[in-house]
């Protein structure tokens, strides 16, 4: 039952009138806000056609936006793969029956989750730059920082996914003579992954959004390219807005996919698809940049 139907009755004539009144007020509010923004932008000359014209030229897209987008997607795609690997390894570590492995994995995961991604990124960027170990320290720093942070979140997802499975799954594995590790690998984790797939896909949105932190360390991703374009063409505001719209469209598509998966997969697993509550704390930390 959705919230909307719970909070109020089917409206009678009086309530319908109030709702209509509220709707008129609401629409007036939206229009006033839009008009104010247009007025503000127009007053500062930001709606002038020459500020927007560069986005109709192919060279803007060819030399600024598309290369930037490509760099963003490259960093995000590599980070998605590596953080899943990191998450699988440390998730299994946290579920290990051998205490030292469990403790070490736990400390590493909790530590990496508690520090800001940006802090890690700046450290890796300057660190790699100093020891001269890689060709492009900014790119490597973005990917590694995203991997360490999101990998830890995914490790937690896998752990809570496995713990959300009915105990019988593990017991059945033991009963046919599997070792705990075998049962984890071939029975529990595959099911946990299906149950956690929506949350995992939502984490991809976090990775994509966080890749924009590369802007601060000078990685030429979408935001950085948009800024360069805007400084060159004198349309900084417009360039930033276009880059934001591109991010929103991609992330909205990925979020919608996650929501669809969550309804589709709830029939496919014994685990609790989509929800990742553990001890009252939601493991998924979507608010991260």
């Amino acid at each position, binding site marked *: 039952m959705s919230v909307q139907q719970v909070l109020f009755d089917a409206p009678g004539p009086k309530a319908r009138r109030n709702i209509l009144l509220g709707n008129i007020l609401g629409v007036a509010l939206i229009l006033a806000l839009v008009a104010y923004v247009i007025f503000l932008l127009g007053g500062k000359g930001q709606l002038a056609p020459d500020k927007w014209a560069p986005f109709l030229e192919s060279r803007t897209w060819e030399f600024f936006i598309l290369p930037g987008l490509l760099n963003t997607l490259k960093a995000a795609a590599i980070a998605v793969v590596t953080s899943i690997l990191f998450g699988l390894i440390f998730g299994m570590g946290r579920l290990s029956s051998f205490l030292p492995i469990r403790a070490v994995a736990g400390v590493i995961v909790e530590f990496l989750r508690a520090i800001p991604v940006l802090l890690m990124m700046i450290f890796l960027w300057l660190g790699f730059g100093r020891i001269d170990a890689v060709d492009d320290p900014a790119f490597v720093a973005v990917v590694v920082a995203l991997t360490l942070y999101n990998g830890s979140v995914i490790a937690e997802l896998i752990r809570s996914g496995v713990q959300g499975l009915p105990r019988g799954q593990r017991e059945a594995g033991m009963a046919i003579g599997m070792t705990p590790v075998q049962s984890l690998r071939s029975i529990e984790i595959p099911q946990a992954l299906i149950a956690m797939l929506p949350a995992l896909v939502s984490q991809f949105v976090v990775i994509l959004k966080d890749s924009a932190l590369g802007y601060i360390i000078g990685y030429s991703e979408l935001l950085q390219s948009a800024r360069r374009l805007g400084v060159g063409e004198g349309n900084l505001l417009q360039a930033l807005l276009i880059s934001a719209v591109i991010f929103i469209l991609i992330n909205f598509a990925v979020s919608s996919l996650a929501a669809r998966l969550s309804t589709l997969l709830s029939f496919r697993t014994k685990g609790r698809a989509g929800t990742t509550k553990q001890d009252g*704390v939601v493991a998924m930390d979507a608010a991260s940049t």
Partner: protein
Amino acid sequence: MENYLTLFETYDVPAAFWANIQLTFWAAIWATLLGTLLALFRISPIASLQFVGAAYVNIFRNTPLTIIIAFGVLGLFGQLQVSLTEDFNLNFFRLAILGLSLYHAAFVCEAIRSGVNTVPLGQAEAARAIGLSFLPAARLVILPQAFRGAVAPLGNVLIALIKNSTVAAAGSVAIEASSLMKTMIEFRGDLVIPIFLTFALGFVIIVIPVGLLTTWASRKLAVAR
């Protein structure tokens, strides 16, 4: 070791963390106010307000915080000459607070909505049965329980906000922790790892108690059903 200790004489590390705490504090207040308003919009019977709430959440949740903060300094200040105070540096600080608030309000809204989902159907029905209309029912019956149910997700938003306050670096706020760390590493390249660990530890020290506290509070405040 002595080398390491001289760092603290040259650079004011506690002041940097204090800047992050201030950013977090103000952004948390504004985000809570705006987020609660948006949550009210989203659960109200009025379709146009529902639309505003949903559109806001979808737009701000899917935009990178870095863009929002960079937009504050490059767009609002640079292009539109929006100024929140006369003081140059304080202006950047306030614009960063504005960006952090706008971004996290979307998550506060979703956290409260998830709290509303924990309130059983019977509560709303009982409120209606004693003759409360939407706003009184929301204010007296639904929201107090919803806030209690939303403590854990709100705590997660707060933790994310503490960590995200470092992104103010994108908004020319040079006094916060990640900017100071960058300066320190650039000048004292011999101590890269100790400097990083100092700042990392600082965040661990701030974040972990907040996590424990919200977990404790969410149990303490949970409505017994």
